[in-house]
């Protein structure tokens, strides 16, 4: 890869050298430099055990989960340009997206990607369990991973409402209906009957956890706005921070697991 002709000329330009501070990665020094000197690649160690790069060992499912998360962020951003989270516009904006964008597949990629991410994150957990990678010193990172899995499901769940069609509101009605059965905190849950003073009911459908989640007694416009903000801003932020912790701890706990 010493390069000759045009490739070498390009590599010798001031512009190229300003971007890549090292020579082609064909020797030990530059292979280290390419990983350590690149903000994205430096998530990786410079060297790692061979068992840790084998597809048969890692299945690449954690990496794909992260990649799909990024893909969903990009497609989601594009969708946000066309979508208004109000009962008046939401459904029509989705229709417009479908009718007026020739060859548009952004919503498709976003939706199928969301399903795919749920699947890859499950299989990633299965792999991590089967290789015993949760064992010391990685116990804490396993816990972070479980929380990330739950957040993945919540991301998908909150996004499910946004098209504002029959499929959306009734799936969310069924799902969020569970919250009203929360013990002590839902109006139809065990213990809610106890929380009353005389005629005054402390836990009712106007103030229980389901009401807080939906911003109302049923899946209506306030629920749409709440789910939109949870889906587009709040949960992704939390997920982003936890992914950073997760990756950091993978490195700090000794990299991808291998026999002791």
């Amino acid at each position, binding site marked *: 890869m010493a390069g000759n002709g045009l490739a070498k000329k390009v590599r010798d330009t001031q512009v190229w050298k300003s971007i890549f501070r090292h020579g082609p990665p064909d020797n030990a020094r530059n292979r280290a430099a390419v990983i350590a000197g690149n903000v994205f690649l430096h998530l990786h160690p410079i060297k790692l055990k061979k068992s840790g790069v084998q597809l048969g060992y890692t299945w690449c499912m954690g990496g794909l989960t992260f990649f799909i998360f990024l893909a969903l962020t990009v497609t989601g951003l594009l969708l946000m340009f066309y979508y208004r989270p109000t009962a008046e516009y939401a*459904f029509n904006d989705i229709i417009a997206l479908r009718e007026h964008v020739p060859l548009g597949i952004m919503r498709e990629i976003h939706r199928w990607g969301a399903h*795919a991410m*749920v699947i890859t994150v499950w*299989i990633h957990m299965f792999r991590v369990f089967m290789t015993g990678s949760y*064992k010391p010193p990685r116990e804490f990172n396993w816990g972070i991973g479980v929380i990330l899995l739950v957040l993945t499901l919540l991301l998908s769940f909150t996004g*499910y409402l946004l098209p504002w069609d029959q499929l959306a509101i009734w799936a969310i009605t*069924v799902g969020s209906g*569970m919250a009203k*059965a929360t013990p002590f905190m839902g109006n139809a849950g*065990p213990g809610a009957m106890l929380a009353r003073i005389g005629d005054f009911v402390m836990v009712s459908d106007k103030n229980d956890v389901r009401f807080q989640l939906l911003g109302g007694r049923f899946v209506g416009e306030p629920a749409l706005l709440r789910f939109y903000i949870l889906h587009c801003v709040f949960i992704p932020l939390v997920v982003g921070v936890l992914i950073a912790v997760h990756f950091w701890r993978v490195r700090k706990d000794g990299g991808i697991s291998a026999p002791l």
Partner: protein
Amino acid sequence: MLKELINHLAEPIVSFPIATFLFYLMIKHYKTFGSKKFATWFTILSIPVLIFFFADPNFYLIIKTPDNVPIGILLVLVAFFTWFTMHKAAINDTRMEQGLEPVEAMPENREKVWSWPNLVYTELFAIIACTAFLVVWAIVFKAPLEESANPTWAPNPAKAPWYFLGLQEMLVYFDPWMAGVVLPVLIVAGLIAIPYIDTNPKGNGYYCFKDRKWAIISFMYGWLILWVYLIIVGVFLRGPNWTFYGPFEYWDFHKIVAEFNINLSEFIWIKGLGIGMPKNLVVREIFGIILTIAYVGFIPVWVARATSFGRKFYIDLGPIRYYLFMTLVVVMMSLPIKMVLRWLFSMKYIIALPEWELNL
């Protein structure tokens, strides 16, 4: 004829025991299951079966729903990776029986390699393959969009997103406070607790089965049978009114299933003792309450005291880990137990206190 048989076999009362039995066979003969020969024959034999299934209009109607495609993909991946992990475990177990190290610990695999190009190019390839897959999927299947949201008209069946259908299926056996709140919270808490309960130092960083048999059996049973199987039932076999429909059955709204489920208290006070239901709520449900406390409270103690493997577990884990683990196991097994009680005795609730919204 054959289709009718399959419709009957798919009913949870039949298919759940079958699934559990197949799980047992898989664990028992994991080396046969994990062999390449098994995978080859399984794949070859499943092709005509799949053609037979897809040729049926009613089955095709359910499977072709765009939102059900991911479940098909999930099933294929789960089947493959379950086989693959057992395949790897079988190889390593055989090696270790011969006194060799597992494949991952062989000197050539312990050797360190450069991330560039070994890891980076693998990732690049995975990203390209994944992108291509998603683009093709997006072109072939349009994202579903039904009529505009209408809060006054509920579709039947109204289903949660597919990844929650295992929980929705649990609603058949448990009330929402259990199936929708307590059990999901315990699943998450239990998963986080796994590394703190499992003190077995073996099996870290390589595939195996023998070294950590009980950990793998408990996890896989929960994952394959209590999670994936229930999702399959919830997605493909539950139609209007959450009634069971076989894979070849048309989802006819008028299918009526007679259900006469009775509570434990009615069973005892009316059928057994013949003296009618007592007025006092606690007295009325006293048998269920005692049974539940005995199940959660005494079974772990009894297992630790009276059985040899329980005593060994207790000594290995110590009291806190042991009781945490056993509580989680007991709660997890309450689902299959409740299923069996429903099928054998039409049992509705062990404790029926609708006055307090506390049905179990």
